């Protein structure tokens, strides 16, 4: 019956954690700050003020571009995007139009359910590429606060560097979208350029959704023949799309897309083409609602920002920036799997760069005599949360203890057990009377005398052996 196929593309905004704003010296960290305390003539758009771009923000955008295998344009420029809104003090947003910093690229996603599969081929077959259209840099707007009948403007956020990542319409379901943005968030965090927190608004997702009606009996999308032979065949897109705004969590992105697919499919079933429009998402009702139709769409009147000369990036400059790229989560995961870590653990370890770094540093300490495998390191880091605050040395020591309790002096242990049975007659009697807990008291006493250098399981076994004679 499923003769409809959703076509989904994404626009993702990420606020950069630079020290200063995009075009002035005000602090970029605006979260939770007293309103309008981090402003100046530039980010307030006062008469005569001029923007000067933040070099760090440009470099970080290049870095994000390279992390997504995008091509860095050798010449890039800023453009003015005009629209009227009270949170936009200049009447235009400085953005990028036809010469973004980066274009093209992709992000690989493993499509198997991480829970379900223990082994994934080392080359990550079964992964799928989601294509990136472009990565560009712009400025954030101020924030409107609606209090009663009043609307207040806070310009602390005005001019904060904002990176926009646009994908090709490569998605056809909400699950892939969710996984993609989760992966993207991990990548951004690896780069250390943003906390990419959706609740705080430092990462924002705007899905563009349409639903394509498939020919009955055909599961394939109609493919337009390329005009010239060097063009890849392109999917024919529906003649409308719906953009959804104001979504502030991964879960809501998924819900909003699912609601929208259903809504549009229902309309198509009735023979109605959904309207091209921008819709908001109401997370309380779990519904999208119309905000602006195509007829009301802006003509942004883009033109090159005359206040900022074009940027020219030499190959060498881009290479220098690229050197800052850390090993990215997908590559790291692939390496861990090659090292013998099972898929689920490799996935978990690589979700957080700090944890993955901890894993790598600990595995470097492994000595063959210690009888420790990399999977043991993964195991302790993932499953023994109490070890999270240990130093790398401390963590490794702990590992050795868990793995090699037999290495301790057997004789000393036996002597200690004998000795403690003699001086704890009461506990021994209690145990013989059937008080199971008494054995644990004895185990504790032995552990204390052995200064922890023994495996409690083994002590218990030995005690039982002696006491049950």
């Amino acid at each position, binding site marked *: 019956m499923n003769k409809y196929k959703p076509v989904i593309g994404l626009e993702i905004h990420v606020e950069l954690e630079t020290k200063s704003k995009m075009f002035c010296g005000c602090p970029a960290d605006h979260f939770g700050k007293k309103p309008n305390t981090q402003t100046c003539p530039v980010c307030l758009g006062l008469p005569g003020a*001029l923007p000067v771009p933040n070099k760090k923000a440009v470099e970080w955008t290049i870095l994000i571009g390279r992390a997504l295998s995008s091509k860095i344009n050798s010449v890039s420029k800023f453009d003015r995007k005009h629209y*009227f809104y009270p949170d936009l003090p200049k009447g235009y947003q400085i953005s990028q139009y036809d010469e973004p910093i980066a274009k093209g690229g992709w992000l690989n996603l493993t499509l198997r359910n991480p829970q379900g599969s223990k082994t994934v081929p080392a080359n990550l077959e079964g992964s799928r590429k989601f294509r990136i259209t472009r990565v560009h840099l712009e400025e954030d707007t101020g924030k409107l606060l609606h209090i009663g009948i009043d609307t207040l403007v806070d310009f602390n956020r005005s001019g904060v560097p904002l990176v926009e990542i646009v994908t090709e319409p490569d998605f056809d379901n909400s699950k892939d979208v969710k996984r993609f943005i989760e992966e993207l968030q991990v990548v951004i965090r690896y780069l250390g350029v943003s906390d990419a927190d959706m609740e705080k608004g430092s990462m924002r997702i705007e899905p563009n959704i349409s639903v394509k009606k498939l020919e009955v009996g055909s599961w394939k999308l109609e493919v337009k023949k390329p005009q010239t032979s060097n063009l890849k065949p392109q999917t024919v897109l529906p003649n409308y799309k719906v953009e959804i705004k104001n979504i502030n969590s991964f879960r809501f992105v998924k819900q909003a897309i699912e609601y929208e697919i259903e809504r549009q499919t229902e309309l198509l079933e009735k023979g109605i083409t959904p309207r091209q429009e921008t819709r908001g998402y109401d997370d309380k009702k779990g519904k999208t609602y119309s905000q602006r139709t195509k007829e009301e769409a802006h003509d942004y*009147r883009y*033109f090159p920002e005359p206040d900022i000369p074009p940027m020219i990036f030499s190959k060498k400059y881009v290479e220098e920036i690229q050197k800052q790229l850390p090993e990215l989560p997908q590559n790291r995961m692939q390496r861990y799997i090659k090292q013998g870590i099972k898929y689920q653990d490799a996935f978990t370890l690589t979700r957080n760069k700090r944890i993955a770094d901890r894993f790598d540093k600990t595995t470097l300490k492994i000595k063959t005599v210690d009888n420790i495998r990399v999977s043991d390191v993964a195991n302790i880091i993932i499953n023994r949360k109490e070890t999270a605050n240990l130093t790398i040395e401390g963590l490794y020591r702990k590992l050795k203890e868990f793995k090699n309790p037999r290495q301790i002096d057997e004789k000393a242990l036996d002597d200690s057990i004998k000795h403690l049975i003699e001086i704890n007659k009461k506990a021994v009697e209690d145990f013989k009377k059937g008080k199971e807990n008494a054995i644990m008291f004895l185990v504790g006493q032995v552990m204390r005398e052995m200064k922890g250098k023994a495996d409690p399981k083994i002590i218990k076994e030995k005690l039982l052996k002696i006491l049950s004679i």
Partner: protein
Amino acid sequence: MELTSLRLKEALEGLENKKFSSVELIKSHIGRIKKFNKKINAFITICEEEALSQAREADTLIAKKAKNALLGIPVALKDNWVTKGIRSTAASKVLDNYIPQYDATAVVRLKAAGAIIIGKTNLDAWGHGSSGEHSDYGNTLNPWDYSRVTGGSSSGSGAAVSADMTLVGTGTDTGGSIRQPAAFCNVVGLKPTYGRVSRYGIIAMASSTDSIAHLTKTVWDNARVLSVTAGFDPMDGTAGKNEVPNYEDLLQGKISGLKIGIPKEYFGKGTDEIVADTCHKALKVLEDLGCKLVDISLPHTKYAYPVYAVIQASEVSSNLLRYDGVRYGNERKMFGDEAKRRIMMGTHSLSSGYADKYYHQSLKGRTLIIRDFMEAYKKIDVIACPVWPFLPFKFDERAIDPLKMYLSDVFTAPANVSGNPSLSVPAGFSPDKLPIGIQFMGPNYSEDLLYKVAYRYEQETKWYLKKPKLYE
């Protein structure tokens, strides 16, 4: 001796030699402003008290033998220069109550050099105009003939310098707005290389052609002020990094052997005979000084104005969006007709479906015009041509027909489109005693050369000695 008749150089010498004090200098200028401004309307705001208190400070410094490029000198700022604590209106009622929180970079530099702001001068609102007739604060009258325009948009600064109300008047030149009043008022006006003087704190008209400078009585005076205001500014991404010489020290020296290009397109039909003749006479003076006059052609000249008009209006429409009625206390309906006209033209030129035909086409035209000049400067050193095709005109003579008014910019706009510097200097008078100017254009950052040529010419002709007769 009337202190207001002094030129900047003499005033600086007089202050240094204690012939008079800065307080006396400021008082006499303010006295003259008060006497004639009601009629001429060169000033929107007069800063009497602040100026006098700064003059007292300057006198203390002078007594301590302190030296500074403009110490104790009265300067009048065009009212689109943003001044901390002093109302800055751009001559538009939209900004009628606007008191800025910061100083423009050029203001910071003038103050640091010891200059004293005596007031803010009138202009065509937002810089939109060539005649001074588009101010929301009334017309500025030409001191040489009250029935005629001063030229604009730096109308107030042109009139104020010409009428001895100030030693220096600042301006902005987006399509001719400094050179035009200079030529109509018998004073020296510089349109510097784009980026030579920081635009930070100058209320933007057309960002890609706005050039910031000043009008003075003589070439030396002009050079001295540029030495103060020019230079790199980290607050302006388009400011040039080239070093700033002491321009006034580079005026001496021979100009013989210099090749001066005379573009035929600027002397054809459409240029009044008296204007062309006056320029030819000026060129003859330079030829007698050993310059070589070379006939040249700038073939795309006829496209320069349309190219300028589209780019300028497009940028104007964008730059004025911030006055959206939410801030600054006044609604958008306060915009005057000329601003509305440019907002509409510019918005249209940038609209989807029209941008290719107008805005993008103009950018291509701009490249051709820049190339015209670059080609010319391979063969010659300086270009000389009229500033205006006609004489100072009567009020309403052209204002009734915007198209006729826009034609005023045909000889000045090309340098704004190309970014090159151009200096307007007095070249004589019509039989009716109306001032006529000539402009010298050169390659980027050739201000020193332009000053040198103009200085030699000025030494020969001394037109600055002629003064208008004012009445209240």
